[in-house]
């Protein structure tokens, strides 16, 4: 009898507590969070819904299309697509490994060792960031083509070879080109992770007689797991989505990837929106699996927290004389990976047409390409537009990501994992599909968005929120929750606590996400090509126009100008981040 009574009261207590926690949920802090969540859900789910609906119909929305499964039959009905998908996955994995290893190594050198010229290394890694992807890809062709590749020619004459040692038109060539062009993302992300790591943990490990390798595995690797995982996920998704290397190298090499198949299926006008959307479901599937995996592995957030607010001094490893060896290796990597392709771009920017470097060609050097770029009215407007949309989109995306990451990590609101997944899915939507969906949406919705920079900002935020979200999420996992609780005891203003405690602590990560998104707006073509309008062009549109109309040398000149610009921005960012980062102990 008494047992039954107890259970009854127990049940009542639980119910009452449920009501109570609900009422507590309705504070204005949760209101703010709800708005953030709603904005993100609106930004992502509406186009996603339109696309998924489109995969099941046979015409554009609003044209009285009828339901069909034909799109899936067309997209996935031939074995070609699966072979291409397999190529895509191996391409993304292998090039991702190259990017990750090199980027991670460079990050370690600049953040945790006393190797000289760290500032130079930092800038050198960031410099290729703004060079249009199509340019770096072509410059690798100019370096490694069996017929005109500079490295091949030099190697042949140096070693008396009768065959060129390298062939860019191969799977390896494709992997290398893309891999080396994407070292910046892992570099930035891992540098932020290294910077906010607690060396006492390492010290504790070295005391406890672990070998250095085991120590690296046990301590460093485990602690940086969320960052590593986030980096790999982003690299992988970028790898399966990219089109430049597969188009310029993969097609001549006869190696189709998934992106090539989409390109080939969709190059007829007008774009078969339904088929395009259907192809993107494969990306969607892969991405959702990736996020679920990531969330599962990083579930136990506290285990990874490293900014704990106790004796905390990022330590620099003294390499002794080894640092000159490390410096040499680093310079070699940068020479091959960054300097050589940039040198080709620089060389070409002074040429009337591309030819292999020679004394004869040097005498033909000209500033005509630079003059042409500066004479182009579109260049200034596109650059300014790009800066405005890029900065706005990066800022909005990062701020929204802070909100989302906070909800996911610090609250137990039901559905928060779903929110994370929803916010991450746009990364799976190919730019052309997303921009078509947005184009149609804002052409019909009576909002003054179409034809303004807002539609670009909306598209960029939607497409790039996944990037900032992963970066912010990984950074926030590293902040011990007691740091926030201590603030909660001090002030009831959630916003004040968020912006004076959490945000400054994850600022290095935020800056990385911000910078990366900003540079992507300078690089990604598929979105603005449809969404920018009269007076709202951005640079990638101009770059692609120049590429299409044969101005490779002018494009190179523009690449050089952009490189100088990004070098300045990178220098400033480093200054800011050094100022706000936790001051290193000596």
């Amino acid at each position, binding site marked *: 009898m008494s047992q039954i009574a107890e259970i009854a009261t127990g049940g009542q207590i639980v119910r*009452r507590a449920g009501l109570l926690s609900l009422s507590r949920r309705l504070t204005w802090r949760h209101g703010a969070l709800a708005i953030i969540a709603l904005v993100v859900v609106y930004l992502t789910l509406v186009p996603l819904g339109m696309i998924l609906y489109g995969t099941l119909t046979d015409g554009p929305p609003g044209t009285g299309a009828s339901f069909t499964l034909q799109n899936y039959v067309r997209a996935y009905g031939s074995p070609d697509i699966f072979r291409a998908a397999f190529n895509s996955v191996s391409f993304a994995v292998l090039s991702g490994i190259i990017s990750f290893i090199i980027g991670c190594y460079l990050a370690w050198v600049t953040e945790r060792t006393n190797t000289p010229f760290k500032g130079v290394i930092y800038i050198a890694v960031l410099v290729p960031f703004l060079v249009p992807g199509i340019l770096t890809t072509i410059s690798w062709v100019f370096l490694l083509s069996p017929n005109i590749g500079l490295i091949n020619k030099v190697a042949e004459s140096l070693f008396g070879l009768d065959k060129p040692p390298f062939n860019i038109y191969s799977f390896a060539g494709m992997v290398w080109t893309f891999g080396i062009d994407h070292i910046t993302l892992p570099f930035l992300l891992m540098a932020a992770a290294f910077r906010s790591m607690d060396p006492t943990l390492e010290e504790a490990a070295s005391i406890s007689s672990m070998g250095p390798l085991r120590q690296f595995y046990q301590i460093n690797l485990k602690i940086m797991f969320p960052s590593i995982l986030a980096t790999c996920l982003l690299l992988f998704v970028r790898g399966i989505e990219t089109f430049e290397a597969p188009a310029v190298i993969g097609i001549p090499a006869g190696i189709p990837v998934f992106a090539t198949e989409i390109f080939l299926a969709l190059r007829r006008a007008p774009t078969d929106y339904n088929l395009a959307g259907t192809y993107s479901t494969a990306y969607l599937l892969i991405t959702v699996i990736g996020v679920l995996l990531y969330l599962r592995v990083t579930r136990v957030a506290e285990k990874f927290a490293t900014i704990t607010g106790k004796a905390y001094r990022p330590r620099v490893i003294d390499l002794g004389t080894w640092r000159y060896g490390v410096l040499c290796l680093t310079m070699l990597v940068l020479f091959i990976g960054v300097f050589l392709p940039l040198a080709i771009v620089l060389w070409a920017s002074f040429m009337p047409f591309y030819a292999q470097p020679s004394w004869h060609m040097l005498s033909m050097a000209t500033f005509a390409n630079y003059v042409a770029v500066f004479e182009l009215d579109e260049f200034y407007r596109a650059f300014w537009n790009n800066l405005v949309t890029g900065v706005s989109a990066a800022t909005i995306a990062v701020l929204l990501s802070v909100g989302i990451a906070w909800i996911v990590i610090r609250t137990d609101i039901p559905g928060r994992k779903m929110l994370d997944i929803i916010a991450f899915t746009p990364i799976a939507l190919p730019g052309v599909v997303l921009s078509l969906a947005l184009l149609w949406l804002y052409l019909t919705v009576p909002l003054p968005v179409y034809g303004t920079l807002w539609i670009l900002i909306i598209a960029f935020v939607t497409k790039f929120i996944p990037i900032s979200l992963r970066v912010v999420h990984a950074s926030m996992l590293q902040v011990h929750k007691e740091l926030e609780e201590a603030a909660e005891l001090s002030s009831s203003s959630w916003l*004040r606590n968020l912006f004076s405690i959490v945000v400054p602590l994850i600022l290095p990560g935020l800056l990385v996400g911000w910078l990366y998104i900003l540079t992507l707006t300078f690089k990604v073509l598929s979105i603005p090509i449809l969404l920018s309008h009269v007076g709202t062009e951005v640079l990638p549109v101009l770059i692609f126009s120049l590429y299409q109309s044969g101005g490779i040398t002018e494009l190179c000149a523009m690449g050089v100008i952009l490189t100088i610009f990004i070098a300045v921005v990178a220098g400033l960012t480093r200054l800011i981040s050094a100022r706000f980062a936790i001051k290193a102990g000596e």
Partner: protein
Amino acid sequence: MISVQGLAKTYAGGNVRAIDGVDFQVETGKIFTLLGPSGCGKTTSLRSVAGLEQPDAGEINLFGETVFSSTRGISLHPSKRKIGMVFQSYAIWPHMTVLQNIAYPLKGKGLSRAQIESKAREALRMVDLEGFEDRPAPKLSGGQQQRVALARAIASDPRIFLFDEPLSNLDAKLREEMRGHIRALQRKLGITSLYVTHDQVEALSISDFIAVMEKGKIVEVGAPRDIYLHPTSRFAAQFVGLTNIMPAKLRHGDAGDTVRVDLPFTSLLCQGLTTKAHSKGDSLMVLLRPENVRVSSSSFNCETNEWRGRVISSIFLGEFIDCTIACGDFQVRARVNPFHQFEDGAEVYLHIAPERFSLLTA
């Protein structure tokens, strides 16, 4: 005064009971410690008082003000509870200077800039950290960081202090020093404090009262001396300090304050204990602290409470020798003066004064 009633909280959708009906009261100006192994619910209880955790049921009153009540739907924001808290990880904000750390809780309370600064400096003085104002927080040693955390807790004139295992990250020597520091500061300010630790020495040395917790429940509350010398539960006896526990039977029931109990290998005379609840033949447990066992290689020539045993092991620990001695089927742990020396296997005599036992119902 802190009063906690019927606090309960479950995790993992109701499957794990973190705390299960916790009640206690802390009198004004006292330090009250929740002591127990990890997972016993002590931290959840403390965090509930702080407002960082939302209990499913119960009521919490601070100086007559209800800050949490599940039945009345009250739950005050942590910052409104006027609490100073010291965290296990110190939670010093690493991007701020020492002074900024301490001043942060003072901001937004209608104080002028000068008032904030003078209050912060005052707090720093109390923890002997004058001159460290402009140091970046990460450039301090562990002990200094702990003191900054303390200063931050003091600065905003809290009604109560909460300590969440504040010393567990310090090395042994520093821990002892900080213990004294915290104790002295608390006495000086007279602030009612709730302290959580799994370290019994810390609990005994710092507290006015200790509550021993096990599996989400408080099993025993008392002054340190009572908890240690006369525990009323087997769990408290085992958890607080080292204890020899031996099953026994009461030989004489209700015979004043001296009773005789039978152990399997001998019989004992116990003094100063009330066994009114027991009658002859009841099964009891005899609790015997190792430091109360006298060991000698020759007989003490006492009639009562002298046993013979054989040394199984003796470990020299500086302050004392940790001896394990076989008496019949039992192994008795004893702490012996370091000047003694026993060979393993040597025959020894044990003697325990009749008043140095505790008895528990089995």
